[in-house]
């Protein structure tokens, strides 16, 4: 799967309150959450983001709360993937579980500029900055998590397991 789009750049330690402020957590409707995605980091973001675009950020992206509403809001806003130096651990798991592709690639996160056209091969983790022509390799994902992705997310993975046990 190739993901391609223009990039939006953010700094380090972007927290889940910036991604989706708690004042909007009285709903879990993805479309509602998307309307406020990244609002406290950039109030105009929900208006200007277009489907397929990519977020590029510094270290510790998604720190703070365990709210799954954060990756849900980003995915529903149309973002195709996130490239960061590092991710906070709960956000990292949540993104995989809900099927939002994320890539740890410190050099790419450092060098890609806002507005660059970037393509990511989700299978190999190869990131290409089409604006500069430079390529990067994202940190490989553990095999176990690749299986979760192959099942289409954690719930499908668990459902497959439960069904298997029932038919034993």
């Amino acid at each position, binding site marked *: 799967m190739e993901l391609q789009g223009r990039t939006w750049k953010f700094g380090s330690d972007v927290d889940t*309150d910036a991604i989706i*402020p*708690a004042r909007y*957590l009285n709903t879990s409707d993805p479309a509602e959450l998307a309307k406020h995605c990244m609002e406290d980091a950039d109030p105009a973001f929900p208006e200007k983001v277009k489907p397929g675009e990519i977020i590029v950020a510094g270290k510790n992206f998604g720190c703070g709360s365990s709210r799954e509403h954060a990756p849900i809001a980003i995915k529903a806003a149309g973002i195709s993937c996130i490239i960061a130096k590092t991710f906070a*651990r709960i956000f990292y798991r949540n993104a995989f579980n809900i099927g939002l592709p994320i890539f740890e690639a410190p050099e790419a996160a450092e060098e890609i500029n806002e507005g660059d056209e970037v393509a990511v091969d989700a299978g190999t983790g190869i990131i290409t900055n089409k604006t500069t022509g430079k390529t990067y390799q994202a940190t490989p994902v553990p095999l176990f998590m690749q299986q979760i992705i192959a099942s289409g997310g954690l719930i499908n993975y668990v459902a497959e397991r*439960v069904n298997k046990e029932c038919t034993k």
Partner: protein
Amino acid sequence: MPMTITEKILANHAGKEHVVPGELINARVDFVLANDITAPVAIREFEKIGVADVFDRERVTLVPDHFTPNKDIKSAEQALLVKNFSRQYGLTNYFEIGRMGIEHCLLPEQGLVGPGDLVIGADSHTCTYGGLGAFSTGVGSTDLAAAMALGETWLKVPESIKFEFTGELQPWVSGKDLILYTIGDIGVDGALYRSMEFTGPAIENLSIESRLTMCNMAIEAGAKNGIVAPDAITRAYVEGRCKRPYQFYQSDPDASYVKVYQYDVSKIEPQVAIPHLPENSRPVGAAGNVEIDQVVIGSCTNGRMEDLRVAAKLLQGKKVHKNVRMVIFPGTQEIYLQALREGLIEIFVMAGGAVSTPTCGPCLGGHMGILAKGERAVATTNRNFVGRMGHPESEVYLANPAVAAASAILGRIAAPGEVE
């Protein structure tokens, strides 16, 4: 093969003799929890799995503590969803308003989590129970849904960092100051993916409340869990309280750590973390002259008896500054009642403070104390991110209950010694 306390608990729950950092394990969970914000998403995902029941009705609890007592119609609907699920699946523990508490104050108090447990919760501050010697960590709603169905979760065994605290605590210094100081030293990602093990003579002398506070904020350094080895203080707390058998684990003396930090607590003053990250901690005297509009005392970080007693000690016979509103949130109904019996509630009300039923409310900018544009709060909570307690242009300063009480009296960030 030597192991840390975290590795031992994980190995036990994975049915293995030993585990090593980096290893992926499938682990049995002793207890799982979610709240009124994260449970609705977990319920939605749980129902997609297609199982008839949760793995164990006694080991799943959904605590409506965030936007409760219901702050608006949408919140009421989320809380109702949680209540209906709890009834439909016959969950043993459901805590309605009036019996409810802030989840991470409530579960240890009710003996639902204990030493040696493996607990996951759809709330990032689930790491609190490390204060009892449990492995506990926050997860998202989907991970929780899977654990509700299977009674298991997959985990990567974290590397451990050891923090050794020596020396005598200075007056008005508590677990909150030690953890703010630590996060200030290592940064908000200083323990990313790792386990923070708090050890040393100063920790061995620390109350259960302060240990819970320290482990509560391990997530603010990016950690997977925080943990304190259980001892006589732990035993005194859990005996007769824990509803399930518990087990005390200790790290082997030759267990390996990726890093060891050593701190002399006699050099640590009461801390304040200035906006907008918990790592911005400094001695209260170095916070500058900061006038404030609100003081919040409570939360899963500092809403326990020890915290209320400290605040009351300073507020007794004093008045909250005319420019300040002070809101106090006992962590549970039991804490509320005990505070009432000890006369603490009267002290708070006489001082001009408002006392609320337990709720996470203002800590996450939900309700019951939201800041307007330009307003500043001193809070005993855990996060001071942009917009955390309200308007994106408001500010939160994190501190212990003594600093919060002193600041409420003087109308600016103040050291407890200034009002003694």
